[in-house]
């Protein structure tokens, strides 16, 4: 998805193609998702984010179609600014606040993968931690305490910041990525698409893209059967 101000759209396109997907860029004003199985909302500053990250993008013409796609069980991955947009649109629970440090944080982090039975993580080996970069000013995950318990209880926490780097932004319970209730929409702050080749410092991000490719293929096979 290309919103005005998206700046990781080409990186996501690259990673998707590298994983073997047929991928193309969608446009924020065009509600036609062109039959996509997976929609990626990329990082960047949609509409400049001068108001509040993702606050304007959720109203863009395409977001209705993204919501319908999700309601039908279609896969949606929101990365960084994409996560913020998903949260603003209510497609995943919670909100992303200003980092606890009140500063832009950019560094490599380690992610603990809480579940391996999701469309996003099925190819991640058990016990493996993902090494991915973060780069954001507003990545502090927030949800009221009571709802956090419910979120954890239903398996809605997919990624947590792991040691030794730890929690870079003050997120509640170290949460780096969450799932919606149906488990087909995921938002995360770290950038898997920027860790798509060893040359870039890590290719752990490809585990997510390959998981999604397999999931989409399985789903299609299921529909055909």
């Amino acid at each position, binding site marked *: 998805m290309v919103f*005005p*101000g998206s*700046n*990781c759209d080409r990186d996501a396109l690259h990673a998707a193609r590298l994983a073997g997907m047929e991928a193309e860029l969608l446009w924020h*004003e065009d509600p036609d998702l062109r039959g996509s199985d997976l929609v990626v909302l990329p990082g*960047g*500053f949609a*509409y*400049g*984010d*001068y108001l509040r990250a993702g606050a304007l993008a959720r109203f863009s013409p395409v977001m209705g179609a993204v919501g319908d796609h999700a309601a039908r069980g279609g896969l949606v991955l929101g990365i960084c600014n994409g996560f913020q947009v998903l949260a603003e649109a209510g497609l995943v629970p919670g909100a992303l606040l200003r980092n606890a440090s009140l500063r*832009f944080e*950019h560094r490599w982090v380690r992610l603990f993968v809480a579940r391996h039975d999701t469309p996003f993580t099925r190819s991640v080996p058990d016990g493996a931690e993902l090494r991915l970069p973060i*780069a954001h000013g507003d990545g502090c995950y927030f949800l009221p305490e009571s709802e956090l318990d419910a979120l954890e209880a239903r398996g809605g926490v997919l990624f947590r910041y792991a040691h030794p780097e730890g929690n870079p932004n003050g997120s509640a319970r170290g949460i780096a990525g969450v799932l919606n209730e149906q488990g087909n929409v995921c938002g995360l702050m770290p950038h898997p698409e920027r860790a798509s080749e060893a040359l870039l410092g890590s290719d752990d991000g490809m585990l997510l893209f390959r998981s999604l490719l397999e999931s989409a293929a399985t789903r299609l096979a299921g529909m055909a059967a």
Partner: protein
Amino acid sequence: MSLAEPPLHEVGDAPGGGEADLTPEPALHRALGLTDHELEEIRARLGRDPNDLELAMFSVMWSEHCSYKSSRSLLRTLPTAGEGVVAGPGENAGVVRIGDGLAVAFKLESHNHPSAVEPYQGAATGVGGILRDIFTMGARPIAILDALKFGDPADARTRHLVRGVVRGVGGYGNCVGVPTVGGELVFHPSYASNPLVNVMAVGLLDERDLTRAAAPGPGNLAVLFGSTTGRDGIGGASVLASATFGESHSADGAKRPTVQVGDPFAEKLLIEASLELIGERLLEGLQDLGAAGITCATSETADRAGTGIEVDLDAIPRREGGMAPFEVMISESQERMLAIVRPERLEAVLGICRRWGLPAAVVGRVTDDGDVTVVSRQGVGESGTPRELARIPARALTSEAIVYDREARPPTHIRRAPAPGAPELPHDGLPERGMDPGAVLVVLGEGPLREPLRERAKALGVADALLLPGRAGDIVPWLERAEVFVHPARWEGFGLVLLEAMLARLPIVASRVSSIPEIVRDGETGDLVPPGDAGAFAAAVRRTLREPELGRRQGEAGLARARAHFSETRMAEHTLSVYERAMRARPARRPERGAGGGTSAGSVLAPPRRDRTAR
């Protein structure tokens, strides 16, 4: 907000208008930062007096910032041509071919003063400006670098500046999606009141997308797209922000800070729209608007193409009302581009700008008269004939702007010079001073002789020509600046420094002692003189300095000799050949030691494999 129309001055009006002559205010041109001499030069180029608007346009275009009037003559001496050079000086960025049909565009620019005033926005708009120079060429920006120099970090103001500048560079780059991949940070008290903020951008392009910042084809349209035009950064390129000027010529006298404010979101849209316009082959030329705004963009593109541009002042989209013509023409509002478009492609161009949410308007057309002309219907009504507010030959503003050959002299502390001497020369043997005024002796390294040398130079009155920088981590920059290398050793094991000097193409004056004659060929790669003979050293150095051709020849010969005889491979081969000769001799003697073989020293000492050793 006042709705009063600003006064208009038509071409031919006297500078400052009639009433200005009655006031004791300083002449307008001086208030604008132009000297009396420069006013004369402007009159000479126009063949008449400039009016106020024209004077304002000249003042920003002839500022140091835009014209490089003091440094241009020096910059011309830099090497700019080469096999891989696709675009050199005169364009917005340098472009070098890297193979596979690809090229890189890169540019480095300082944004010192704005960053000293407002560190975050100063640095941020520095990044914005340098990025525009890159994608104006048709290249997608892929990296930012910065070179920053500040005063003492213990100083609170320095810390304020560092924090702001670093955040400004990173914040703007992050927002447009271009990483800051490297740079340097230096603290030194000399930068206390004058921080240096240099930003560099690198872009990647398909060579076929290379776009020129020119305005060819009379009849083509000038399309301004991106942000609207406001009063921010008026005269940032000059000292134009003068109260006198503002009060007498601006309707509301309101002035924005001369430091511009960046909008990285708008820049990101500009990048995508510009690269799409270029990729679709819709443009004849593209120029970003930086210092001196529309005046600079129109005059530079016209001058490069040998054309003119007529600017329709009323068509320029503005963000505030009541702007005087000069404010519109020299505003430095950020994130704007000027595209030169064929009329039949206008709709397609406007469509792409619309798609990216960017205001765009036809603000002028290319002419064949070589002039930048400014016209307006203000005050004459819709039906009236547009009035011509300014007419200046484009080249008078750009390529034929005033150039100074400023007086240049070496710093006084290295003005006079003795002959290069040496730390170990006998006390009575220092050559007579003044044998080559301008020469400076640099003695590198640390040691017990350093202070005595300094004292002695002081006693002899030549301290100002002796540099003792101490230990030099990297001697290459010193060698590059040197004209002759002096090595007055009393003895020498091998003398790696001699090889280093030879590899730097330096002629050598050295003692004829120990291993030195093996390295330096007397009369061929340098001159050898008796050790300790200061007079002979001086004579040899003097000759080399006075005969640059001799020095050059010896330097080249030295380089060739160092490569031919003293390369790593060559040295290894030499060493190996000694072993091989020794080994070959062995078997011949073995039968003499009796039959039966057995172990011998020779078989134990197997020669190292040649390919491994020679590597």
